């Protein structure tokens, strides 16, 4: 049992977080903490709710217990590589270590409006960083991540044309509430796309990053689609519903879609402190989920109690947050840690192989000198191959540049195709009704469709980019190595993905609405017709009843025609506005996709080129060593053999530290 230093709760041996207070347990066991110079905090974690900076800042970002060992193994390997005069391998390991430490575990908090998502984030961190209000809803996604000093940055959309980069602005943490609340300057608030907050909190210190999302109004809303697209990049999802009622049909629909993107999820029932029948609701929700065939843990919590946990001891247990922390620990951190450790092991394995190449070659020459020339020949061939890998006309480079070109064309075509289908569908929708009445519905519908189209297009891009990198890797014949970080899934992209679809102008802008209604107040031809009938009545009577009948018929037809003409005009205007909007959207998305693909190409190329350089260096050095070994005297050979055996052992010794418990 591991005892939590802050709250005293006994936790299972392999846990990295306290189930009670959420404190990180690594600091309570002396083993890892002293090695990395992490100072155990002296004050308790739980502090009054009003305190904004509840956590003492640990001096380094600690990636969490299972990762710590891997990090130290990588460090050892790096020292060894430098000893072997291989700074290039040292850099490779340094990169792997940096990747491991900077690991971001995005956990998205999603759910309907007013279910207590922001409060849940606050309660998890025991802070008041997310603005909470009875009335105002969270309008923009807030990303809460680890930072040594509390700070916040607001991302604004550029004032000018769409497609320009976002404007970042540093905000005082205490003023976040003002920024997103009603009191803020509305023009400024409208441009606000997302908020990023850094807090020195231990939960975040493990790489967990919480994303507080705006409420989704069912799948119909654009917000829902945006949230869904963001979920593609999250490691885990906390689906929030409250104890006031059982899960509703839109909630279930959203949940089903969201699970396709983020299968790691938990359903949290908040506000259990307010409702005496919360156990019934939890039971009903479990049943609904089971009926829908969704296997999801249901965790009832009370953020209210957890935020007041500093007042008395029992409150934290009563709040039910322990179960949520357990979930974060086992399902998110441990699962991702396993993956990260596997990746790091692959990096280590690659380095080992490279170091061994030189040693093994020399050993072979020393052991059987008569094989010397054959070995040198073999290595010569290898060196030639690796040199070719580095050249810009090497096959893998071809695969990459051709692949990217194809990809850009395909993604563009896909987008154009989707947008065209959407335009046709929009025109049909407009034809079915009178824009005067249906416009507000069409506006909302179109906005949602555009976001969904873009999301689908983005999915395709991601899938294909991943396939391409696999293909390049195959062509490169790199059997082992780090998984390649694609430019598409880096944490910064998480926010970009969220804001992507929000910087578009809504098609329901004032201008069109005014235009549509203007149709009603425009000069009305029918009244002129009536006027004519009135003034010429005497004449018509003189002409007899048949003429009167004709006149009346003519008038009625004119009215009908005029109505029809106005309707057609309105429809045309609406169609044009929709088309403009869709074009604009296609332009922005197209540029965005092409940009990220180019970035992907650059990153892939650099990654593989580095690797080619490492391979070449290894084969080159192996060649040099082997040649040198063939010229050694028997006496020197013996000494060298001992040295090499030692080196070999050292390299082999790198493995055991990596085997996870």
């Amino acid at each position, binding site marked *: 049992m591991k005892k939590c230093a802050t709250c005293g709760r006994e936790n299972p041996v392999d846990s990295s977080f306290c189930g009670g207070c959420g404190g990180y347990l690594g600091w309570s066991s002396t083993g890892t903490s002293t090695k990395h110079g992490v100072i155990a905090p002296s004050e308790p974690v739980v502090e009054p709710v009003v305190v904004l900076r509840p956590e003492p800042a640990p001096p380094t970002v600690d990636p969490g217990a299972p990762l710590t060992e891997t990090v130290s193994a990588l460090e050892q390997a790096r020292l060894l590589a430098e000893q072997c005069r291989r700074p290039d391998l040292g850099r490779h390991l340094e990169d792997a270590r940096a990747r491991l430490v900077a690991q971001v575990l995005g956990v998205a908090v999603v759910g309907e409006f*007013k279910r207590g998502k922001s409060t849940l984030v606050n309660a998890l961190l025991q802070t008041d960083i997310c603005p909470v209000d009875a009335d105002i809803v969270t309008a923009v996604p807030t990303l809460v991540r680890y930072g040594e000093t509390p700070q916040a940055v607001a991302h604004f959309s550029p004032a000018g044309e769409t497609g320009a980069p976002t404007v970042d602005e540093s905000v005082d943490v205490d003023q976040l509430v003002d920024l997103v609340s009603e009191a803020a300057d509305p023009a400024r608030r409208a441009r606000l796309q997302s908020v990023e907050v850094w807090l020195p909190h231990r939960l975040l210190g493990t790489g967990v990053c919480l994303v507080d999302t705006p409420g989704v109004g*069912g799948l119909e809303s654009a917000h829902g689609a945006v949230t869904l697209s963001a979920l593609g990049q999250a490691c885990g999802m906390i689906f929030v519903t409250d104890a*006031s009622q059982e899960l509703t049909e839109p909630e279930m629909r959203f949940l089903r879609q969201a699970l396709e993107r983020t299968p790691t999820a938990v359903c949290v029932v908040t506000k259990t402190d*307010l409702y005496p029948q919360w156990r019934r609701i939890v039971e009903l929700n479990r049943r609904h989920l089971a009926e829908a065939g969704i296997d999801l843990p249901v965790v009832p919590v009370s953020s209210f109690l957890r935020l007041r946990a500093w007042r008395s001891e029992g409150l934290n247990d009563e709040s039910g947050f322990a179960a949520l922390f357990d979930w974060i620990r086992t399902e998110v951190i441990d699962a991702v840690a396993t993956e990260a450790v596997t990746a790091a092991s692959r990096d280590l394995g690659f380095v080992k192989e490279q170091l061994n190449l030189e040693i093994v070659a020399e050993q072979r020459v020393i052991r059987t000198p008569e094989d010397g020339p054959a070995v040198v020949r073999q290595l010569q061939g290898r060196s030639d191959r690796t040199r070719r890998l580095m050249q810009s006309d090497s096959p893998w480079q071809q695969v990459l540049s051709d692949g990217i070109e194809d990809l850009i064309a395909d993604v563009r075509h896909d987008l154009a195709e989707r947008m065209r289908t959407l335009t046709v569908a929009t025109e049909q929708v407009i034809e079915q009704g009178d824009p005067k009445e249906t416009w507000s519905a069409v506006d909302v519908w179109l906005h949602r469709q555009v976001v969904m189209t873009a999301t689908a297009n983005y999915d395709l891009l991601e899938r294909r980019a991943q396939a391409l990198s696999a293909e390049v890797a195959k062509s490169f014949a790199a059997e082992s190595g780090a998984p390649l970080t694609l430019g598409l899934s880096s944490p910064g992209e998480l926010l970009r993905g969220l804001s992507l679809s929000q910087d578009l102008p809504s098609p329901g802008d004032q201008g069109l609405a005014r235009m549509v209604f203007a149709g009603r107040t425009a000069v009305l031809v029918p009244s002129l017709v009536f006027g004519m009938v009135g003034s010429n009545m005497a004449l018509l009577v003189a002409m007899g009843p048949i003429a009167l009948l004709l006149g009346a018929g003519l008038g009625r037809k004119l009215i009908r025609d005029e109505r029809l003409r106005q309707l057609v005009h309105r429809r045309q205007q609406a169609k044009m506005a929709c088309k403009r909007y869709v074009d604009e959207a296609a332009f922005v998305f197209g540029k965005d996709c092409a940009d990220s693909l180019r970035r992907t190409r650059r990153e892939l190329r650099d990654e593989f080129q580095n690797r080619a350089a490492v391979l070449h260096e290894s084969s080159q050095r192996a060649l040099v060593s082997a040649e040198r070994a063939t010229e050694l005297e028997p006496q020197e050979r013996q000494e060298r053999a001992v040295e090499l055996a030692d080196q070999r052992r050292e390299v082999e010794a790198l493995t055991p530290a990596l085997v996870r418990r």
Partner: protein
Amino acid sequence: MTPDGSDPLTIAVRSLVGQALERALDQEAREQLEEAVRRLSRPLRLAIAGRVKAGKSTLLNALVGEELAPTDAGECTRLITWYLHGPSAGVTVHHRDGRVERRPYRRDSGALEVDLGVPVEAVDHLEVTWPSSRLRDVTLIDTPGIASLSSEVSDRTAALLPDGDTRPPIVDAVLYLLRHAHSSDVRFLESFHDDELGRGTPVNAIGVLSRADEIGSLRLDALEVAARVAARYRTDPRIRRLCPLVVPVAGLVGHAGMTLRESEYRALAQIATAPADQLEDLLLTADRFCAEHVSVPLIRSDRQHLIDRLGLFGLRYAVLAIGSGQVSSANELALRLTRISGLDGLRETLLRQFTERSRLLRARSALASVRAVARRGGCADPGYLETAVEEVASSAHEFREIRLLNDLRSGAVVVPESRWEEVDRLLGGSGFGPAARVGLVEGATPPEVSAAALRLLGSWQALAGSPLCGRQLQIAARDVIRTIEGIIADAVPAGH
């Protein structure tokens, strides 16, 4: 205003329906028209609709002042249920196949438990007749929630709404319960369209911000926040277009206030005597209040009962009110609870918006029925009947008012922002009494009313005559002038 249906409009409509009846060709048309005649003298039909678990049944119980509709933490209303006034209590089951059957019911634990005798799927709706004075003027219709997990339940509610113009509208008006502006809420409201006669909803829907006590995590200022939220909804164009009025109501608290018992007051008073720190601990969460052992001498089932009746907010509020000496009897507490729940506000709004307007709404419904039957070909001489409907509809100034009000509120007719409130009031938006229309307090003397009306008349005549004002506005201004003239004519006694 003549509630007995002897006003000129009702008489005209009645004679028109009579003419249609003479021309009816088939049994169905005859039945529809007879139903329309009956409805002219029947109470207003008010549907209570909203998303699942919005608190519809609770509100219905609070409005009747009796526990009739079953309520539960889980989803529980699965059938459309009509609550009508009747000399004796009884439940009738209307089957899908058209059969009508009286069924036994029980009322052990408060709410009605009806023995349907058949599966729920075979039942179209239930009709409950109850001898309650509060049902005399209005028939309440409880509906299953939309956006329910069982889509069949949602479909039932959607079927209550008129589709196309071949079916007469079933309900005259709707109370729409919003918990938050969800997209499915707005879609539902949009589907609540009438035919051309009412052309839409702003005049026959009231938004109710329900479960208002739960807004903002049951803090004691929850209802103030709720009022703020409701005010914001009123300015949201999407909601304003559908129901321009949003009132916050805490149904559970209201119901408790309407039906508070002496024993409950005594239990609450007993809790209120506990020391402050113990009270705080006790009322911290619902679970704590219902725990096995607590510091107050009140058995668990009694505490359970109190929290079920009042909710945590009502409980906290009542204990605070008693503890601070603001109330000292069951009666005072009941009044206070009813007042803060917003139920009084809703009643007043209902009276203003619907009960006074119900004659108009019913006449409109009857005309719609005639038109629907004529269009369907259920009558001989459909052209004549449609023309007659048009004649009645366009000659009744009340209809013009209501249509203009609707156009204004939906934004189809634009008046200068400075006159918006004034014109809405003049057209009866905040009450039909002449004093309310000219913006005076209730009870103003006729000379005061006519003086105010004359002032308004001048300004509107100037507007109507202004060459700068658009044609639409001119037409609107002429209608308003006619309304003001009517007010003046009523205010000045005959002979002057």
